[in-house]
């Protein structure tokens, strides 16, 4: 292709023990929204880091606008018009939007001027943003806008976006897509990394699919089904979780007027959360990150203790009980962050099994640990949940994200909880592991447990939930039957888009919700 903006030719990058990219070639035209698809570990990150100058390829070459392009550092890539919005924001909570943006500039002008440029760029692209607000007070969607505006100020030719929608409500996704379309119309190419296939089908014109570091296919996502793309990604036929329909039983977990203060300055306080969960059902709780999910899990798991009468398990008040007493009674939890919260990275899997299973699996007697039993239990988790590891003596940090997540979920599920609270069960997990985890949750529910599944992935929630409610600024909406809920309704339950009205005034937003699966 002669009119290509960026062409990659035979890019190969090997790390000790793994080939991250193998002979990767494709090209992006100006104004094209190009999807890069692949499971975790397929080599997407390495590839975009190569384009952004963070990784140097072992062999292969890149051409940008007809010239050889080999950035040795991000600064050089930025100077040549490549900008990137990372999945994890690099913003300082305590500084204002304008200060944060000025920090990333080579020669920052005066604050006032930065603010003026932020205002004009954000108005131009329909990304409402007040330059004087403190970042710590912004929602995840707004933070992302800060990152995007920061990139747009550089007037990029190619914008790389890594998993941009994982923190957005459907309406915010709509706003983002409008912005991306505007950018594309002006000739900016966008390299869009995601594993949300329906989104890719909505916004992208071309897709390159990576598996194990190699390009395994290209397609026009507008004309390819999500399932077909998923199967190209995974390289096998996908297993769709299925559930055995079963009427809900009696109430096991009852949360009544749960209030809890924010644990730190930029945390979220829980406000009057009330919901009852029954045996055999999966209650899905949606919501954008930072709306009280962590706090809710902590209040239920026992990491944070609450006032009497707020949390009851099987009719018994447990709000004042510490974590292990709640575990003994049958309430288990798995927090979102695997490394350092749900699991201790430097400890072995056996030790990690002891972490939460000591009480219920009777791994101790009179305070002394039975390492033999602990090892057996860890082995059972590894076997039952297909955790890929040489054995239970390996450190948790040596496992990939998906495998560690399977271990963490398996550790709790095998303890046969009566109530299982899980936050982001498949975050950053590849498609086949995600399917296995969802199936485990459904199996747990059909075996008679109550499952509370907190997630930001609406597709996931629709797949597993019997009832759905939304967490917004620490408040929980009334649960509604998940079947038949439309994406518009869910979006409204999630509190809609932040500053959506402002965006409407500026942008011609017509179809914000076409991301529906």
């Amino acid at each position, binding site marked *: 292709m002669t009119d290509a903006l960026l062409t990659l030719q035979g890019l190969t990058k090997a790390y*000790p023990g793994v080939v991250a990219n193998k002979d990767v070639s494709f090209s992006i035209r100006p104004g094209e929204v190009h999807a890069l698809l692949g499971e975790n570990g397929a080599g997407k990150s390495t590839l975009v880091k190569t384009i952004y100058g963070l990784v*140097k390829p072992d062999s292969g070459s890149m051409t940008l606008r007809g010239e050889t392009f080999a950035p*040795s*550092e991000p600064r050089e890539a930025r100077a040549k018009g490549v900008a990137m919005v990372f999945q994890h924001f690099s913003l300082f909570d305590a500084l204002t939007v304008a200060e944060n943006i000025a920090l990333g500039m080579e020669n920052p002008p005066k604050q006032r001027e930065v603010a003026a440029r932020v205002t004009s760029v954000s108005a131009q692209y329909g990304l409402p943003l007040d330059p004087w607000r403190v970042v710590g007070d912004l929602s995840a969607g707004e933070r992302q806008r800060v990152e995007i505006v920061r990139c747009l100020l550089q007037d990029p030719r190619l914008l790389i976006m890594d998993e941009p929608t994982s923190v957005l409500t459907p309406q915010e996704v709509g706003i983002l897509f409008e912005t991306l379309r505007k950018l594309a119309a002006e000739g900016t190419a966008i390299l869009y990394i995601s594993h949300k296939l329906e989104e890719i089908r909505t916004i992208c014109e071309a897709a390159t699919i990576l598996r194990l570091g190699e390009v395994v296919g290209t397609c026009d996502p507008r004309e390819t089904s999500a399932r077909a793309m998923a199967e190209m990604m995974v390289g096998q036929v996908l297993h769709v979780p299925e559930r055995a329909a079963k009427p809900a039983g009696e109430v096991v977990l009852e949360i009544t007027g749960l209030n809890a203060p924010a644990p730190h300055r930029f945390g979220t306080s829980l406000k009057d959360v009330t919901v009852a969960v029954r045996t055999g059902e999966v209650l899905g709780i949606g919501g954008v990150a930072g709306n009280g999910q962590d706090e809710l899990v902590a209040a239920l*798991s*026992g*990491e944070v203790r609450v006032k009497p009468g707020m949390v009851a398990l099987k009719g018994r008040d447990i709000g004042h009980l*510490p*974590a*292990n007493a709640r*575990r003994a009674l049958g309430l288990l*939890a798995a*927090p979102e*962050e695997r490394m*350092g*919260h*749900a*699991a*201790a*990275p*430097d*400890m072995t899997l056996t*030790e990690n099994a*002891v*972490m*939460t299973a*000591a009480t219920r699996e009777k791994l*101790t007697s009179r*305070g*002394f*640990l039975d*390492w033999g039993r602990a090892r057996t239990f860890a082995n059972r988790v590894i076997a039952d949940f297909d955790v890929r590891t040489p054995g239970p003596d*390996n*450190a948790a*940090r*040596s496992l990939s994200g998906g495998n560690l997540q399977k271990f963490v979920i398996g550790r709790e599920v095998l303890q046969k909880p009566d109530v299982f609270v899980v936050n982001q069960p498949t975050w950053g997990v590849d498609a086949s592991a995600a399917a296995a985890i969802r199936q485990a949750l459904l199996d747990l529910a059909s075996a008679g447990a109550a499952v509370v599944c907190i997630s930001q992935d609406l597709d996931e929630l629709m797949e597993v939930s019997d009832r759905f409610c939304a967490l917004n600024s620490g408040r929980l909406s009334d649960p509604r039957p998940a079947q038949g809920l439309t994406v518009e309704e869910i979006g409204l339950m999630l509190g809609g888009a932040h500053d959506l009205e402002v965006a409407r005034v500026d942008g011609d937003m017509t179809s914000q919700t076409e991301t529906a699966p």
Partner: protein
Amino acid sequence: MIALEKRPQPSRIWVYLAPLLAVVLTMIFGGILFAALGKNPISAISAIFYEPLFGEFSFYYRPQLLVKAAPLILIAIGLSFGFRAGVWNIGAEGQYIVGAITGAAVGLALYPAETRLIFPLMVVAGALGGWAWGMIPGLLKVKFGANEILVSLMLVYVAEQLVAAMALGPLRSPEGRGFPGSRNLSQWASSANPELMAGTGVHWGVVAALIAVIFAYITLSRHIFGFQVRLTGQSPRAARFAGVNPGRMVLACMGISGALAGLAGLFEVTGPSGQITIDFNVGYGFTAIIVAFLGRLHPVGILLAGGLMALTYIGGEIAQSNLGLPGAAVQLLQGMLLFFLLAVDVMTNYRLSLGKREVA
């Protein structure tokens, strides 16, 4: 280009190799240092590391090694619990002093009764004294979030003033002709902590140190409390999720290290030192920090490290008297040991990769 790469697993070999390599490097660079001072490096190093163990007068030095090593090991074992859990008790020296004071005070209050019960009572009082002194920074941290490093360290100086005041005031020997210092506890049968076997240097403190090593080993490897200590140190958030109460963990760790330091003080004041004096403490509490890390916070490691550190003390004295090495040079050698250990320690979790990455 040389780059450090994080190992997927901590290297087992390096866990053991690092302290050995640190000792070797200390010998080499210590030798260079001594040579720069105009001393024969070989004889200086051998005076420090060889003479006390196998030299002509080793029959005299070997018991001294145990006498020096016992308090170091006892205190370091206590500290290792806190250090593993991320509770930084830097004030073991103060807890050591207070343990000696309270233990001695209980004994002296009963002077001159003759009963076998007095010594055990003093042991309990010594442990409680150290425990109480350790509880001060512990409680301040739990209740008010005060930094335990600063508070425990500052309390060392309070304890130093306290021991001086005690030696001059309440605990001063009525038969001491006005000189500061308490009665000699090692010369009173009820309170003496004598050599248990003649010529070996083994006193009750050595026995207590060995028991502490075994106790710590079992607790850390087999008991749920030891597991929680390790978990808290490695991932505080994961520990809270696993049901560890962070405040209680701080108090437990400060309590254990305080009590063991207090015990060490008590065994010292009833044995080798014999009396409360103005300058009772000689820095065991601080050196024990080095011992704890040199021993990788592992009980058996601490046992060996305590022996090694005692060796540098005794050997250092030999080098000072025989070769005229300045005392500061020996302290420098001890500092080097910790420095090299921390430097080499990187290899446990990282590996060197040579020339793999191109220069940007």
